[in-house]
């Protein structure tokens, strides 16, 4: 083995250990609920817990709507910027990065002040309204990922020529976006969607401060009050996130091959 190879492998092994040891330890701990032997009791308890089912279902639904909001917001925006206003792209990129810089807690306090029951837009006056606000908040948190995913997808096609080709053959904007642009960036949109899903499932701050029965606050609550179940939940959450990532990887293989770049 060449020395450079050796160091590469060593670095890799260290990184892998750093990543996997806590995970394995957590997993091992989660199996020890029954004294003296390994069992999946902790998982059985978690899955049997009504609150687990309820919060998980709630977060899943919220995640789905968040994805819809994100797609409706980001795809036309990113498309339009590529087509007509490439000069403002840096500005939009900066704006989409803001949710990474501004802590979620700041955003949610802003929401609470802006959209209280006495405000002109009283989102917080009703439960449904609060749910909507939560989705909008999540769409914001997911914006950096969604925007980048879609924008990268758009880069692989010749947006302008395809648009003109569709236009000259009679298509209007809706047809262009639905039949031409969206299908060609579908894989990118889906990876954005799975990232959004992973974010929403684990999010704590917004759900907690808006007092919604989401999965994140449930995780936190269990973590503070039980011994083995939190370990099981951590492993479950990790599996969900990891599952989402794997789906993205698999989807990437099916990305449409672009025939529009003769060079």
């Amino acid at each position, binding site marked *: 083995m060449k020395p450079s190879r050796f160091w590469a492998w060593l670095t890799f092994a260290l990184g892998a250990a750093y990543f996997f040891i806590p995970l394995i330890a957590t997993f091992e701990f989660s199996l020890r609920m029954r004294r003296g032997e390994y069992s999946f009791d902790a998982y059985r308890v978690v899955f049997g817990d009504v609150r687990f089912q309820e919060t998980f279902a709630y977060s899943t639904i919220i995640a789905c709507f968040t994805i819809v909001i994100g797609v409706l917001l980001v795809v036309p925006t990113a498309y339009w910027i590529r087509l007509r206003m490439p000069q403002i792209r840096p500005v939009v990129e900066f704006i989409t990065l803001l949710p990474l810089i501004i802590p979620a807690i700041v955003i949610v306090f802003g929401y609470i002040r802006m959209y209280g029951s006495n405000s002109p837009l009283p989102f917080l006056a009703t439960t449904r309204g609060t749910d909507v606000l939560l989705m909008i908040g999540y769409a914001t948190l997911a914006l950096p990922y969604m925007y980048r995913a879609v924008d990268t997808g758009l880069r692989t096609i010749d947006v302008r020529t395809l648009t003109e080709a569709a236009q*000259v*053959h*009679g298509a209007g904007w809706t047809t262009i976006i639905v039949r031409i642009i969206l299908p060609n960036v579908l894989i990118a949109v889906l990876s954005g969607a799975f990232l959004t899903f992973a974010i929403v499932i684990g999010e704590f701050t917004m759900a907690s401060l808006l007092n919604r029965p989401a999965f994140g606050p449930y995780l936190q609550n269990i973590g503070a009050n039980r011994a083995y179940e939190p370990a099981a939940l951590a492993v479950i959450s990790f599996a969900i996130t990891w599952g989402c990532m794997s789906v993205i990887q698999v989807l990437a293989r099916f990305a449409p091959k672009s025939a529009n770049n003769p060079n």
Partner: protein
Amino acid sequence: MSETFLSIQGVRKAFGQTTVVKDFNLEVARGEFVSFLGPSGCGKTTMLRMVAGFEEPTAGRIMIGGKDVTNLKPNQRNIGMVFQAYALFPNLTVSQNIGFGLKVAGASKAEITDRVKEMLSIIKLEGFGDRYPYQLSGGQQQRVALARALAPKPKILLLDEPLSALDAKVRISLREEIRAIQKKLDITTIFVTHDQEEALSMSDRIVVMYDGKAEQVGTPFEIYNRPSTKFVANFVGTLNVLDGTVVDPATATVRINDRDISLKKGQLNGAKAGDVLSLALRPEAIVLGKQDGRDTNLGGQISDVSFLGSVIRVRVGLGKNAVSLDTFNSPASPPPVVGERTEISFSSDDLLVLH
């Protein structure tokens, strides 16, 4: 010429301060094939895009079939267009690409299927209907793009350098194919190119463009043999330009080197004695050595010889002038040698005064 179908009237286009198309006028007859020929950046694409509706003219009008379309959107003009970069929809099959325009227009399934089949046979790609664009060669993709443009029976077909991304062999076969399909469907066509051979071989008429203006409009024969400006003469074909000084305007006599030559009458356009004129001479109008029937000869020295296969291109220096000419390659006689003294002859009637 038969009735006008496309009429471009006094069109001008400016992007900010720069005027890219200047006072462009053109009448195209129904079924005519017209090429826009010119160097890069002369405004060919911009003019074509105004016909398509992607750019709005700063001034002037565009009429199609007697209807003013200047302010119509591209998707309201019923135009077919083929792009240099193919621009097939990567997510649709060949059949779906070809049927796209019909589907958007709300045609029935059966209608679309029939038309797609017909188009596939016209472009000789039967059996390729279920392929995706990335599974086709460049030439095949461009044929599909042509079929997609023609399927909805557009009023006008626009092609913007459709062959320039293809290699030489495909380019030649495809240009013949495009011309044949165009004739068969009798569709009014505008073809943008910067390749003079393409324009000369395909067109009914050519518009030679330079710096946003139509320099000359005419048949390939007229453009090639009777260029009206120095630019056209230079751009179309390989042209020799000789400087000649007017000796006697009355007899149309000019002096080239130290020989007095009488031009065809009426070419001087009011030039006075002592004026220096640019005189054009095509390579094929000149022969090496003396020849009967050619009234003028000039002495010179061979400065360059390039072997092009069936012909040999020879450059001959004549004092401060120089000309290129072609001689046929003959295995029996040795090729000209650089540095040799020689004589060229041509007929003074072939000299063309450029303005």
